[in-house]
């Protein structure tokens, strides 16, 4: 026994360090694009999630009927060869012929009908299924390459939904295996097919050489390898050392570290996400925020250009109205506007009866801490003492939904689904628990606008809403998010007009 022990302790000194050759470092040499993202993806199929990182996969594995052109944001026919609204509630799709799924199944009307039936089956529990697909009344196959979709009510934003998250499934394959098969073994018509994945850490996609000629360019890079790297500093280190060619979830603050790093290119583009300061207008007694002059004072006290350009990015949009200019129907020429004016702010505080200010709690998701601190600084100048509370996103969301927020920095929207203003005005002015304003007029105008197909009518309604918001200073619009795309200089990647990158469009620079 003792011998055994001695022998085994001897092994402790011989640390078995088996060193193999260093892994091949990135790039063009092996025709593999290595991409880093921050969060893991639960489903490679974007029907289940709404995170930008999972849209990444859904977008290139599947094709949608309508494609959002990344250069212009324009909608173009993809799997549909054309589409026509025959009335306010009916749209007819002509389908592209000669397209094959990655498993060889031919694409036709049966696939589209099958996919839409799945969307309409509320037992499937897709994410936001009721909001996004609850309005579909029926889907009908007219012939092998024509499909008619009927809505229950007019829905001017229906195309956004189709372009962002409705990848068409092959009916035979999906029927045989259940739609959940796409979470692990997805089959679409898209430019890349999933070859293998270690869920939560690494995904390998290979080029679909048979991809059709359409509005989206044929893929050129042979293999895309996506890795989840949760720590942004590690991503930056990988970029600097050439371990990855592209990082898609860095913020512009993160990217400052990379400025001047050899071989790395940082580009910024507009995003549809926007941030505003939410105030509890409808709160009960003893609520200084219920006073419009106080809210106006707050609006005058914040030096938005300094805040946004200093802390977010010099390229970020400073918002005058409560929408992102990259959104459709975002009207920015509304009166009044609140330019930084400390004297006016102080006077308003005085006339509102708060010459010495008051205490208020500002909640924000943890990554918004710098913005919160800056707001804290601005508001202290007019006597408002801000207690900043930063929380993890779920905890913040929980309290915000419950109506427990006095003041919050709210970030909202992403990608194609926020391409229209209705998305960001939606839940904050609809009379629900996330509506801290409770202005009945606005609620009514919004509801009408979201069921009106006529563009000028919609515009008029949104103008009314945005004007009222500014007049009453219900919220303080802050900034539009900036999307940061970091690539190695071996990679050519055109910055998309919206933050919904299609990495199948990346190519080698030479």
């Amino acid at each position, binding site marked *: 026994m003792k011998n055994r022990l001695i022998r085994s302790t001897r092994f402790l000194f011989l640390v078995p360090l088996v060193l193999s050759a260093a892994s091949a470092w990135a790039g063009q040499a092996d025709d593999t694009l290595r991409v880093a993202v921050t969060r893991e993806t639960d489903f490679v199929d974007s029907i289940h999630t709404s995170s930008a990182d999972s849209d990444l996969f859904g977008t290139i594995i599947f094709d949608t009927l309508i494609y959002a052109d990344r250069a212009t944001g324009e909608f173009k026919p993809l799997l549909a060869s054309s589409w026509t609204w025959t009335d306010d509630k009916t749209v007819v799709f002509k389908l592209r012929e000669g397209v094959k799924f990655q498993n060889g199944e031919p694409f036709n009307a049966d696939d589209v009908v099958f996919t839409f039936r799945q969307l309409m089956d509320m037992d499937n529990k897709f994410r936001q299924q009721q909001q996004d697909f609850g309005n579909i009344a029926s889907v009908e196959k007219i012939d092998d390459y024509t499909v008619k979709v009927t809505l229950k009510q007019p829905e001017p934003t229906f195309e956004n939904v189709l372009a962002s998250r409705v990848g068409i499934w092959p009916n035979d394959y999906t029927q045989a295996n259940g739609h959940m098969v796409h979470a692990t073994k997805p089959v679409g018509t898209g430019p890349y097919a999933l070859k293998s994945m270690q869920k939560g850490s690494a995904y390998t996609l290979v080029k679909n050489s048979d991809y059709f000629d359409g509005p989206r360019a044929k893929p050129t890079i042979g293999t895309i390898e996506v890795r989840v790297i949760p720590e942004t500093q590690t991503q930056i280190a990988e970029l600097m050392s050439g371990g990855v060619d592209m990082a898609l979830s860095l913020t512009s*603050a993160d990217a400052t570290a990379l400025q001047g790093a050899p071989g790395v290119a940082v580009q910024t583009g507009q995003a549809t996400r926007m941030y505003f300061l939410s105030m509890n207008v409808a709160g009960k007694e003893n609520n200084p925020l219920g006073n419009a002059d106080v809210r106006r004072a707050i609006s005058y006290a914040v030096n938005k250009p300094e805040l946004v350009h200093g802390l977010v990015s010099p390229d970020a949009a400073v918002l005058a109205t409560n929408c992102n200019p990259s959104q459709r129907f975002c009207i920015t020429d509304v009166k009044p506007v609140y330019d930084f004016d400390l004297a006016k702010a102080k006077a308003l505080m005085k006339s509102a009866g708060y010459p010495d200010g008051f205490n208020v709690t500002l909640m924000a998701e943890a990554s918004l801490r710098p913005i919160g601190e800056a707001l804290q600084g601005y508001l202290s100048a007019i006597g408002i003492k801000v207690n900043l509370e930063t929380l993890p996103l779920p905890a913040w969301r929980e309290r915000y939904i419950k109506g427990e927020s006095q003041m919050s920095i709210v970030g909202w929207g992403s990608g194609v689904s926020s391409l229209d203003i209705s998305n960001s005005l939606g839940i904050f002015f609809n009379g629900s628990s996330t509506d801290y304003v409770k202005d009945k007029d606005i609620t009514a105008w919004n509801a009408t606008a979201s069921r009106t197909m006529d563009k000028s009518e919609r515009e008029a309604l949104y103008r009314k809403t945005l004007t009222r918001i500014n007049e009453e200073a219900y919220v303080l619009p802050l900034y539009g998010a900036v999307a940061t795309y970091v690539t190695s200089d071996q990679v050519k990647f055109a910055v998309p007009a919206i933050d919904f990158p299609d990495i199948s469009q990346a190519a080698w620079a030479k």
Partner: protein
Amino acid sequence: MADTHVPALPDRRLRLRRALRHGGFVFGAAILMLALVVAIFAPLLAPYDPVAQNLSARLIPPSWMQGGRPDHLLGTDHLGRDYLSRLIYGSRISLIVGFATMVISGVIGSTLGFVGGYFGGRVDDVVTYIINSRLSMPGLLVALAVISLVGGSLLTIVLVLGLLFWDRYAVVVRTATQQVRSADFVAAARVAGASAPAIIWRQIRPNVFHHILVIATLEMAMAILSEASLSFLGLGIRAPTPSWGLMIAEGRTYLFAKPYLIWIPGIAIFLLVLATNLLGDGLRDLSQPERHT
């Protein structure tokens, strides 16, 4: 006071002399005292308000580096706040976290240890069982989970750390109490009719106190490091009160571009933890001969 304790004096003087010869102890005590003084007199020492921001003076490097300015000795952070002032005020939070956690866990752990060690038998079985249950819970994971659900404030962090990390006290105090329990003076007190709490407080506590002190320093160091780790994972104490852990967490974004932003608070934490550990080591060394006599 000296009059009533005449016989103790030479012993004390001797102990003091030994303590002053112990390099680690002196170094540790000096740094800790310095941190304490800085924390107490922070408003007098700090050149600026630690939360006053100046967005036009962001990310100025320390004065000895290129681009540094003499009016910001350690430079400024991403919001243009004076880094030296933040460091000075940050000592408060880090010390409060360390000290409060040490006290809370000390009270819980020592009480369990005393009770288990003194009574033995069934009572001890229960105490051992509680200790084992606690030991088998992954402390940092539980802290992370709870704080992420409740949100991090100074109070929650101190409470969570204090309620979790009492195990070392319990283990050590229990063993030490077992050793002292059978000593003559304890038996004498028992015969004289003293109650159990009285015996624990008057006879046993003074004799195991040096153990508690040693653990206390270790716990304090551990709490300061844990707070830093929690901050790193985004679950630390919220602004505007700077803690050193928070300074590292905020500066991390600039790890490669402005490394001093994380080196400065990093070194501060390192020194404070090192000092606390050295103090503990010193206390252990200094108390050892006594145990033998």
